[in-house]
C-alpha cells in the first residue's frame, strides 16, 4: 500500500497530472489520424523527453499510449478507415452502425469498452508486475540470458508467417547491437573508424528512424498511390444521436467486456503477441456468442452489420493489451510490444534500467507509471466523450501532404537533438530506409527491435554465464543448479518448434487432401 501511495503522490502533482491529460488528448488526436499511431508519436517525443523531468515524460507517454487505441476507433467508425491497426475490426460493425444513423452509440460503445479493457489491464499491471519483479531479482546471468532468449523466441514464434524471416530479423538486430566497443575487452567492432560508433549505434536516432522515418516513407508511398488513383476523401456520417449507452446495453455487453479483457490481458503479458492477435481472437470468440444469443432476433442486425458486440469485443481486447504489455517490461526488462520498446528508449535516456531493479532504484517512477495507467483510463472516459465530436471533425481537415513533411522534420530534428550531430540524422535516415525495406520484404520488425534493445544485455549475460560455467554451454540446461533457466529455455524451444510443427502438419494435411481429390477424380 505504501508503494501505491508513493505512486499516487508522484502522479497527483498538478504538473504531472497536466502532462497525463496532454498525453490523453494527444493520443486521441494521433490515433484518430489514419496513418499515424502511438509508435510515430513516441518516435517524435523520445528525443524531447530528455529535456523533461522523468515523471512528466512518462505521464505524457502513458496518457498517449492509453488513448491512442480509442482515437483509432473514431475514423474506423465514422469513415471505415481505421486510425490504428488495432481498430481494423471495429470498422466493420462500427461503421455499419454509424451508417444506420447511430454513430454516437457506436462511438459510445467503443469508448466505454476501451475504458473497461484499459482499466482491467491497469489492475493486472498493478497486481502482477511488482511480484514478478521481486521474483526476477533472484535471476543471475544464466537466468537473464535464458530470459532474453525466451523473449525473442516468443516474439518470433507468435508473429506467424515465416520463422526464417523472424530469425533473420532477430539475428540482424543482435549483430547491429554488437557495433561499438566490446563490453568484455573494449575492442572496437564494426566501427569503420567512425568515432560516433564507438559506443554503439546511437539508440534514439535508431528508434526514431525505425519507427518515425519508416512510417513517413510508407505514408509518402500511400500519398503518391492515392494521387495516381485519384482517391477522394470519404464522406462522413454525422453524429446525431447520444454518445451515452444506457444501462440495458451496458449489462448486455458486460460478458463481452469481461471475456475480451481477460483475453487481451493474457495476450498482452506475453512478449510479441500484440493487439492484433487479441482483437482477432476476441472478435472470433464473441461472434459465436452473438450468433447463439442474438442473431435472427427482431431488431438485431447480422454479425458485421452493426452488432454492438462487434464493436465492444475488439475495443475492450485492444485496450486490455495496453497496460498488461508493460508487465514484462517493468518486471523483467523485456518489452511486450513495440511501444513498450520505445518506453525502454525513454527510460535509457533518463538513465534508468528497466527491469526488477527499477522498483528499487526508482520506486517512485515505477509506481507512478503503474498508477498512471489506472488514472489515465479513468480520465480517458470523460475526456473522450467530451472531445470525440471535435476530433472526428478535425482530423479530416488535416491535409496529409503537410503532415508527411512535418513528421519527417520533427523526427529528424529530434534525432539531431540526441547528440547535436548531423551523424544522428544520418543514422535515423539509414535505419528508416532499412525499416522500410525490411517491411516491404516481409521481414517482421518486432524481433529486430527486441534484439536491438536486448542485444548488449544478452551478450553481457552470455559472456558472464560462460565465465561462471568455465565455458560450458550446458550451464543453461543444468536442472540442478539453474532450474529457472531450464524452464525458460524449454519455453523458448516451444515457441520456435510449435509453429514449425503446426506448419508441417498443415502442409501434410493439404498434401493428403490433394492426393484424395486426385484419387476421386480418377
Amino acid at each position, binding site marked *: 500500500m505504501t508503494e501505491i501511495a508513493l505512486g499516487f503522490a508522484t502522479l497527483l502533482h498538478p504538473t504531472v497530472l497536466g502532462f497525463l491529460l496532454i498525453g490523453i488528448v494527444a493520443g486521441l488526436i494521433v490515433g484518430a489520424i489514419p496513418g499515424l499511431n502511438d509508435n510515430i508519436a513516441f518516435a517524435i517525443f523520445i528525443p*524531447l523527453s530528455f*529535456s523533461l523531468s522523468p515523471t512528466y515524460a512518462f505521464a505524457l507517454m502513458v496518457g498517449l499510449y492509453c488513448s491512442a487505441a480509442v482515437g483509432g476507433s473514431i475514423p474506423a467508425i465514422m469513415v471505415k478507415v481505421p486510425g490504428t491497426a488495432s481498430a481494423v475490426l471495429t470498422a466493420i460493425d462500427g461503421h455499419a452502425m454509424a451508417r444506420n444513423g447511430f454513430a454516437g452509440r457506436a462511438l459510445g460503445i467503443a469508448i466505454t469498452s476501451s475504458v473497461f479493457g484499459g482499466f482491467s489491464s491497469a489492475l493486472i499491471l498493478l497486481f502482477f508486475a511488482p511480484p514478478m519483479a521481486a521474483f526476477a531479482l533472484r535471476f543471475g546471468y544464466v537466468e537473464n540470458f535464458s530470459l532474453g532468449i525466451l523473449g525473442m523466441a516468443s516474439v518470433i514464434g507468435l508473429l506467424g508467417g515465416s520463422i*526464417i*524471416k523472424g*530469425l*533473420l530479423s532477430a*539475428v*540482424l538486430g*543482435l*549483430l547491429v547491437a*554488437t557495433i561499438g566497443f*566490446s563490453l*568484455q*575487452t573494449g*575492442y572496437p*567492432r*564494426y566501427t569503420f573508424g567512425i568515432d560516433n560508433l564507438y559506443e554503439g549505434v546511437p539508440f534514439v536516432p535508431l528508434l526514431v528512424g525505425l519507427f518515425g522515418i519508416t512510417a*513517413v*516513407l*510508407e505514408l*509518402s*508511398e*500511400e*500519398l*503518391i*498511390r492515392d*494521387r*495516381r488513383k485519384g482517391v477522394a476523401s470519404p464522406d462522413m456520417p454525422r453524429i446525431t444521436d447520444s454518445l451515452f449507452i444506457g444501462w440495458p446495453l451496458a449489462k448486455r455487453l458486460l460478458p463481452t467486456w469481461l471475456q475480451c479483457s481477460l483475453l487481451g490481458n493474457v495476450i498482452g503479458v506475453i512478449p510479441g503477441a500484440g493487439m492484433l492477435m487479441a482483437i482477432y481472437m476476441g472478435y472470433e470468440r464473441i461472434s459465436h456468442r452473438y450468433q447463439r444469443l442474438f442473431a435472427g432476433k427482431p431488431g438485431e442486425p447480422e454479425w458485421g452489420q452493426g452488432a454492438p458486440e462487434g464493436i465492444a469485443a475488439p475495443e475492450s481486447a485492444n485496450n486490455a493489451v495496453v497496460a498488461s504489455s508493460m508487465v514484462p517490461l517493468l518486471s523483467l526488462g523485456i518489452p511486450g510490444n513495440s511501444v513498450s520498446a520505445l518506453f525502454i528508449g525513454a527510460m535509457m535516456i533518463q538513465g534508468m534500467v528497466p527491469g526488477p531493479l527499477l522498483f528499487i532504484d526508482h520506486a517512485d517512477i515505477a509506481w507512478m507509471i503503474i498508477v498512471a495507467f489506472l488514472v489515465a483510463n479513468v480520465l480517458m472516459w470523460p475526456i473522450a466523450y467530451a472531445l470525440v465530436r471535435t476530433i472526428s471533425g478535425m482530423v479530416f481537415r488535416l*491535409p*496529409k*501532404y*503537410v503532415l*508527411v*513533411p*512535418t513528421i*519527417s*522534420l*520533427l523526427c*529528424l*530534428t*529530434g534525432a*539531431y*537533438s540526441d547528440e*547535436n550531430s*548531423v551523424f544522428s*540524422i*544520418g543514422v535515423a*535516415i539509414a535505419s*528508416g*530506409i532499412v525499416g*522500410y525495406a525490411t517491411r516491404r*520484404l*516481409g*521481414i517482421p520488425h518486432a524481433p529486430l527491435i527486441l534484439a536491438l534493445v536486448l542485444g548488449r544485455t544478452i*551478450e553481457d549475460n*552470455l*559472456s558472464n554465464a560462460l565465465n561462471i560455467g568455465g565455458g560450458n554451454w550446458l550451464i543453461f540446461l543444468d536442472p540442478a543448479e539453474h532450474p529457472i533457466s531450464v524452464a525458460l529455455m524449454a519455453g523458448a524451444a516451444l515457441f520456435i518448434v510449435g509453429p514449425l510443427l503446426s506448419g508441417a502438419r498443415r502442409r501434410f494435411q493439404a498434401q493428403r487432401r490433394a492426393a484424395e481429390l486426385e484419387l476421386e477424380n480418377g
Partner: protein
Amino acid sequence: MHVVGIIDFWSGLVFACLGAAACVMALGFDSDSSTYPAALAAALMGLGLALVVKAVRRPAAAKAVDAEGSRIILWGPGLEVGVWCLWALTLWAGLGYIGPAFLAVLFLIMRHCADRRTRLHVAQAAGVAIGVFAIFYLIFQVPLPELEFIRDMLE
C-alpha cells in the same frame, strides 16, 4: 519463380552476403571479442541461404514485376529520402536550419499536393519550419545550427 519468391531469393542473397562479410570482419577482431559477432554473422549467412533455398523450391508462376510499384517507390519514399539527405548536407555545411528546412518542406508539399496553391503552400512550409524550430530551439533549448544573424535576432 513466383514474384514473392523472387523477392525472397534476392533478399536472402543480400543477407547471406552481408553475413559473410560480417563474419570475415569479425574473424579479424581480437580472439575474445570475435566469437559472438562471428557466430551471429554465420547465423545471418545461414538464414539468408535458407531463404534463398526456400525461394528456389517454390513452384514457378509467371508474374511480371510491378513497374508502376517501382515508380511509386522512386517518387514517394525515394524522393523523400533524397530531399532529407540533401537537407542534412546543408546542415552539415553550416547553411543554417530554418532556410533549408523551409525549402525541403515546401518542395515536398508542392510535390505531394494534387492542386497547387503556391501562396498557401509557402505559408504552410514556413509555418512547419518555424514551428518545429521554435519547439526544439526555444522550448526544449536544443542548439540547432542556425545562421549567425537569425541566432542574433532570436537572442
